């Protein structure tokens, strides 16, 4: 609201200042013809110069003659220049432009190119927001208490479940979805969410129960990719390599190359084709690190930002998670600079994995123990993020 008031005030101020000026302008004639005035002034200056001796008397005389000649010509011209009258119509046009055209077209153009109402997001405030996260915990506790008293409130469970998921409490999340299903009855969407959380909780291992739920979800919505993705993963985990290969191939055929899960699927497929008999590790662990070397430290590229804007919130979360996990894998295996570690820790905080962030901070200290400057940087970071 405040925002629109400021906009209105700005526009009104501009319009008013013009309207006042327009109504004040009388149709006064020019005071004296300007040229004549200028030549008069020039004459006085020549007199002054001659008196102080800046120019010689002869020069002053010559200058005077010349200016007088110009002065005569100017006054003759001024008489010839007749003053034109003013049409009253002009005032209407001006007022119309100022009162109607100016505010309306500014507003229309702003709606077209601007982002009305999007708040500022200064970095300091966002970091502080992250530090206030305990509030979220309190909220969770309060909701939990409420649900203990009213265990049949499906809405409550549905509010709580994604929150659990976001803070990484996948087991609680899947249980909450389970409660909701118990109350509402079987529902493919909820089963999909529950199954996914079960998988996350089991570090990527897909249990028979989860697989069954995925199958039901897939049957209910055959267009959805997510259940098929996990089903393919499950086949691979059970060493049913040929079926898995077929499933992945079918998925990839329909896929748009730019979708975030495609590299994971591709990696799975390649691994299966390579006929290794080792058990499949979690899909995420095999996700390729998005970028290598110093490159990984640069911010997201323009394409990535554009891609992120077009994704749904869920996909976006998955992409960010994928990038963070890639970085984590690389740093824990090969080590990295303080800046890279700092980035990882910060990113983990942003996606809500505080425990993990703490863990990585320890790993970073271990990795950088020879680098005094790096350690100091880490300490400073830990302090701003409220870690220890």
């Amino acid at each position: 609201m405040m925002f629109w008031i400021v906009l209105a005030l700005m526009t009104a101020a501009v319009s008013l200042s013009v309207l006042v000026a327009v109504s004040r302008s009388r149709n006064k004639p020019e005071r004296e013809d300007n040229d004549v005035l200028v030549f008069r002034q020039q004459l006085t200056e020549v007199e002054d110069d001659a008196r102080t001796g800046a120019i010689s008397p002869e020069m002053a005389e010559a200058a005077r003659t010349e200016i007088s000649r110009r002065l005569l010509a100017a006054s003759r011209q001024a008489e010839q220049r007749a003053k034109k009258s003013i049409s009253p119509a002009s005032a209407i046009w001006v007022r119309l432009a100022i009162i109607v055209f100016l505010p309306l077209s500014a507003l229309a153009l702003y709606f077209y190119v601007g982002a009305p109402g999007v708040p500022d997001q200064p970095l300091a405030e966002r970091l502080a927001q992250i530090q206030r996260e305990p509030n979220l915990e309190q909220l969770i506790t309060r909701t939990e208490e409420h649900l203990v008293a009213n265990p049949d409130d499906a809405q409550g469970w549905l509010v709580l479940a994604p929150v659990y998921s976001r803070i990484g409490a996948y087991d609680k999340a899947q249980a909450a979805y389970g409660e909701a299903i118990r109350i509402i009855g079987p529902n493919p969407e909820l089963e999909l969410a529950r199954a996914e959380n079960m998988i996350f909780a089991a570090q990527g291992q897909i249990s028979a129960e989860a697989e069954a739920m995925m199958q039901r979800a897939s049957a209910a919505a055959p267009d959805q990719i997510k259940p098929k993705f996990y089903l393919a993963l499950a086949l691979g985990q059970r060493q049913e390599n040929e079926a898995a290969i077929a499933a992945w191939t079918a998925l990839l055929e329909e896929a748009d190359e730019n979708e975030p899960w495609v590299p994971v699927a591709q990696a799975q497929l390649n691994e299966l084709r390579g006929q290794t008999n080792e058990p499949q590790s979690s899909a995420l662990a095999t996700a390729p690190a998005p970028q290598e070397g110093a490159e990984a430290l640069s911010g997201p590229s323009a394409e990535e930002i554009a891609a992120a804007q077009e994704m749904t919130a869920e996909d976006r979360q998955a992409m960010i998670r994928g990038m963070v996990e890639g970085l984590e894998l690389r740093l824990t295996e090969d080590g990295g600079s303080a800046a890279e570690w700092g980035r990882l820790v910060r990113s983990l905080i942003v996606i809500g994995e505080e425990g993990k962030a703490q863990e990585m901070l320890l790993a970073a200290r271990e990795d950088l123990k020879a680098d005094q400057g790096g350690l100091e940087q880490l300490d400073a970071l830990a302090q701003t993020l409220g870690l220890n």
Partner: protein
Amino acid sequence: MIIEIGHFALILALIASVVQSVFPVWGALKNDQRMMAVAPPLANAQFVLVLISFAALTHAYLTSDFSVLNVIENSHSDKPLIYKFSGVWGNHEGSILLWVLILVLFGALVAAFSRNLPTQLRAATLGAQGWVSFAFLIFVVFTSNPFLRVAPAPMEGRDLNPMLQDIGLAIHPPLLYVGYVGFSIVFSFAIAALLIGRIDAAWARWVRPWVLVSWIFLTLGIAMGSYWAYYELGWGGWWFWDPVENASFMPWLTGTALLHSAIVMEKRDALKVWTIFLALLTFSLSLLGTFLVRSGVLTSVHAFAVDPARGLFILGILMVFVGGSLTLFAWRAPLLKTGGLFAPVSREGALVLNNLFLTTATAAVFFGTLYPLALEAFTGEKISVGPPFFNLTFGPLMIPVLLMMPFGQLLAWKRGDAWGVTQRLTGAFFVTLVATCLLAWFMGGTGILAALGFGVSFWVIFGSVWEIVDRVKPRKVGLKKAWSRFVGLPKTVYATSLGHLGIGLTALGIVTVSAFETETVLTMQTGQTQQVSGYSMTYDRTWDQRGPNFVERVAQFTLRQDGNVAATMMPSKRVYNVSGQPMTEAALYTSGFSQVYISIGDNMDDGSLVTRVYYKPLITLIWIGTLVMSLGGFIALIDRKLHVGAPQPARKAVKRPVAATPAE
């Protein structure tokens, strides 16, 4: 909220410029007071609105608000505060916004300081200014909008090009833009005169401060850019005849010509049409410069982003303004009356000659800059027109200008006495001769060209102050009287002398550096000492250290002269964390007007360090000269008088009274 308010303010300013483009000009043509009255408040409103929007963008940078695309692309939370601030215009969008901010600032200044102007001229000028700001505001909003948002906001940005992370970025672009954009006011005044079809007597007087302000800032901006390139690029060059430099140099040349022709117009009512033409030409060249730099036609540190849509847009603006103004000129200029006659040998004649040489020099730079681009565009063939072309065309054109300068200062208006002036300059000539011999001997120079160069430079230096000596005549009247005369001199005399003196100093610096600089490339081991141009230089040690957003390797050198330590110099090589880009930071030691310049390269396999050492005799004179020039311009600026060129009376007129007396 602040960001979106800034965005709305920018759009409101755009709409205000639409209104300003239409009514004031319409009103001026129909002599309608009401329509003309909208111009000043709209000019003020535009300035306030763009200022709000610029402040909002600056706020986003200072608070590292990564929900703004422009901030993500050009900032980083670790960046030092000063570069967060200057980074606002260290990118395409922000720099165009700064351009517009200065443009509307000038518009508001015209509205504020032109109350005594004829209403028609004032309204038409502000209207023409409205056209320029409309063109650039629409460019900002539609192709270079710095307020685009991103959701979700990333936690970090991509940092600013390390080459731009320097105090130079805080100074050079604003100075240069004030120069470029200031000429838009002169342009608008010229357009207004053409639209109304009449040049008021005091037109040149009203235009004078704007020409001077623009010229002063353009001079300082170019000089600052040159000094920045000199210490930042790491190989000690101070002028490269690079297209981007030429782009700023061309409006400077025509602006200098305009400065002089406007004097003739103000004092003698002559050269009116030519002055109008120069005003159009100068701003057209400013626009050309903006096009070359901003379109991505040239790849350089200035071309922040290559985007064909932007290039086409600026090309469109350029064609409309240049084509339109020249058409208007061809159509309306015959209406303007030409005034004041003068003899070929006179102050006016000398200034015409100055204009002729300066515009020819501009043409030479213009072809040298654009011919390779045009050739590449049409035939795909790549050629490079390097310094030799410019040295051979521009150089010879400047020599007569420099030689004539002292004469021009002493010649009388309307009709002058060439022989008399030559006699009066005899003293300056002898002083020049002595100074040239002394300097040539001191530098141990044998080259005839260098000696000639010294001669020309000293001629300008002494010739330019000779006018003061000639007017004060200290030997004739004694010191006390001379001092009072000196104090009483018109400001224009100081202004002219300082302006020309500055040119002479710059020329002296250029000649000396070109003829006598030395460059030594060494591979040095720790503890090793080398002799370089009269100094002995010891490589002490090297170490690594961490900056706010970079790591650097610093080498320490001790410079000794005759066994005494003259300086400890610490050049370094940096690698910026985010971009991974390496940068060299040269170390400079100034002694008198000369400098020693060290920049380091890579470590060799055996641990030795590649070191480049330059000795640059009198190099700082190049920039000191530009400061002196600007000071001259500043003194001319604070002179608020109307100027009348008192003509030397014809001989006949002087004699007549003598012959007439006996008749009594």
